[in-house]
């Protein structure tokens, strides 16, 4: 208990499956990670890797036919996976909040920005109208929106994409959460705006000593803004470690391939190193290692499922090859 005093979140052996008519989709299969106060964890992977479902599982936002089959989600000492919906409602948007990918669709176009921020404030706090007005202005100012009093009366369409995402962040911050889950918060934004928004989020996490899970497909982005990185592939966690470990000395062939295939770091105008093939269908995964069909280093033993094991200094990889060397 003492050792984990500043651990905000511990996910252990999380399994989220979708039971569809065509078969069982193992969207998240035995995923474990943890997060300390003031830390930003990057969850990287391609679409379908299970990174968003991992985020939704923490918030209990998995709808049927999906279900958390196994695993524990320990948030501030309590197991969220075992909690009934009635109790999750009190945590969701209060102690854990979420920033969504598309600021266009996550705000309601028919209500003012002010209404939507105040709604988030009132949902979990017992405060007067005058106080909410004051607090809402403060939140907008905090996320860097000028003349907040006037802006609160405006509708989402009157905001630009970057501004809308700032509003999304303000709503997520409304209840001063201990954990923020940001699902591709900057994917819909331009590079210059992306840098602004992520800088803001990082600053807020550090100021308030909360923690953040940044879900993204952009490994370069994660290298810049996160402290630790988890790489997911086909529903499994294939590698995790500090950002230096993952970016500078990737151990899993998938991570290696991903980093090697990023243009801009290689000699210009030459063929890029590419990972052949594509991610397997989650309903029809190969025996053993899910990366096996695309892996340049695959051997006979890879038909066994590799466990995530430590390869030094907290750097872990799920690959027999990385363990041998």
């Amino acid at each position, binding site marked *: 208990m003492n050792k984990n005093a500043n651990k905000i979140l511990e996910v252990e052996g999380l399994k989220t499956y979708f039971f569809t008519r065509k078969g069982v989709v193992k969207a998240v299969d035995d995923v474990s990670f943890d997060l300390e106060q003031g830390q930003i964890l990057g969850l990287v992977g391609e679409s379908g890797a299970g990174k968003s479902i991992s985020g939704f599982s923490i918030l209990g936002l998995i709808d049927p036919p999906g279900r958390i089959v196994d695993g524990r989600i320990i948030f501030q000492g309590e197991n969220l996976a075992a909690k009934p919906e009635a109790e999750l409602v009190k945590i969701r948007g209060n102690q854990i909040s979420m920033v969504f990918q598309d600021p266009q669709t996550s705000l309601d176009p028919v209500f003012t920005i002010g209404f939507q921020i105040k709604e988030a404030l009132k949902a979990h706090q017992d405060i007067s109208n005058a106080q909410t007005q004051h607090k809402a202005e403060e939140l907008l100012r905090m996320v860097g929106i000028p003349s907040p009093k006037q802006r609160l009366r405006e509708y989402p369409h009157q905001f630009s994409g970057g501004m809308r995402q700032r509003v999304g962040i303000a709503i997520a911050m409304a209840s001063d959460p201990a954990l923020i889950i940001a699902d591709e918060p900057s994917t819909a934004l331009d590079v*210059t705006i992306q840098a*602004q928004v992520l800088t803001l989020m990082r600053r807020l996490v550090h100021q308030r000593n909360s923690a953040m899970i940044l879900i993204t497909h952009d490994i370069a982005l994660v290298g810049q803004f996160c402290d630790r990185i988890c790489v997911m592939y086909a529903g499994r966690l294939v590698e995790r470690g500090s950002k230096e470990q993952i970016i500078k000395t990737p151990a899993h062939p998938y991570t290696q391939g991903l980093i090697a295939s*990023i243009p801009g770091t290689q000699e210009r105008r030459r063929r890029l190193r590419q990972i052949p093939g*594509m991610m397997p269908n989650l309903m029809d995964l190969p025996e053993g290692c899910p990366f096996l069909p695309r892996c340049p280093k695959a051997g006979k033993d890879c038909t066994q499922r590799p466990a995530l094991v430590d390869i030094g200094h907290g750097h872990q990889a799920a690959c027999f090859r990385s363990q041998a060397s």
Partner: protein
Amino acid sequence: MTRDNEISRDKPQGIGGNQLPSATSRGVLDPQQNTSQSLLRVEDLIKHFMVQKNIFEQIKWQDGRIRRVRQVVHAVNGVSLAIDKGETLALVGESGCGKSTLAKTIIGLHQPTAGSIYYGQDEIGGLTGRQRLPYQRRIQIIFQDPFSSLNPRKKVMEIVGRPMLLHGITDKAGLKDAVLDILAQVGLDASYASRYPHQFSGGQRQRIGIARALACRPNLVIGDEPISALDVSIQAQILNLMMDLQEKFDLTYLFVSHDLSVVKHISTRVAVMYLGFIVEMAETDKIFAKPNHPYTRLLFSAIPTLEDLEFKDSTILEDEVPTPIDLPPGCPFHPRCPYAMERCKTDFPVLREIYPGWQSACHLNDTG
């Protein structure tokens, strides 16, 4: 990306004037000097859109009286550029800067408001319908979203084969072979020809989109963000395919993208757009090594790189792009520019050559 944040007002060493071999000798053209050799040339192209499209939308009740409101989106504001045979010209900029509008105007999906587009010696900007057809075959486009750009009711055979029939590349008898041949070129199996788009993954769909673009053997292929909708590990595959095909078919690319690391890899020349203006244009290695325009530097500094993991607590500007409805007077970038002078608020900086083959539109280049 930016090595130094100071604009050097003296002529910088190393990339200064005469030390460069002349641009034309390496097959890269200077648009002002040698226009006859370029494949496609755009001159003072302007594309404006009306916000209120008709009289019913224009009439508004304002301040107690009826007014007619006519707002104009200045999407492209007098762009001139030349694309040379065999090169890959990248068009970069933030969303709303007019890069896609420019690409779509070139291919004829928009009619230019003013200005000319020349294919070789022929003006094609004003052509429509049957008149345009012979040029249409020469210029093709790969769209951003492989999910919405393929007709879900048509089989791959029809999607790829139709342009071939339309342009008389092949007759009905030879169609099947021609389609299978082009599918093989983009790395798709022959059995895929009888399938529908929904049966493919994003990467495969984009290959179909590329096959369709190549079907009528174009010279110029415009890629409008062709890989940004794809997964990271698939992006490299499609980029490699595009580079292979360029070599094999001697293609010229106009590559529209906001992803600067991709642009750095694939392009030979870069044109940076801001609010419908080209603010800087130069060869790729040079512009990335030493961007001249303050906007180019801002853009390049925002790219996350793998080399530098240190978090930079923002040298980023807090402001966002102004709307192309109300363009700022003077330099379009002056409200965000850290080096803005009095002059920038009133005088429009003309895009001019600062070194051979390198153009920039900034008043800072005039001083010193």
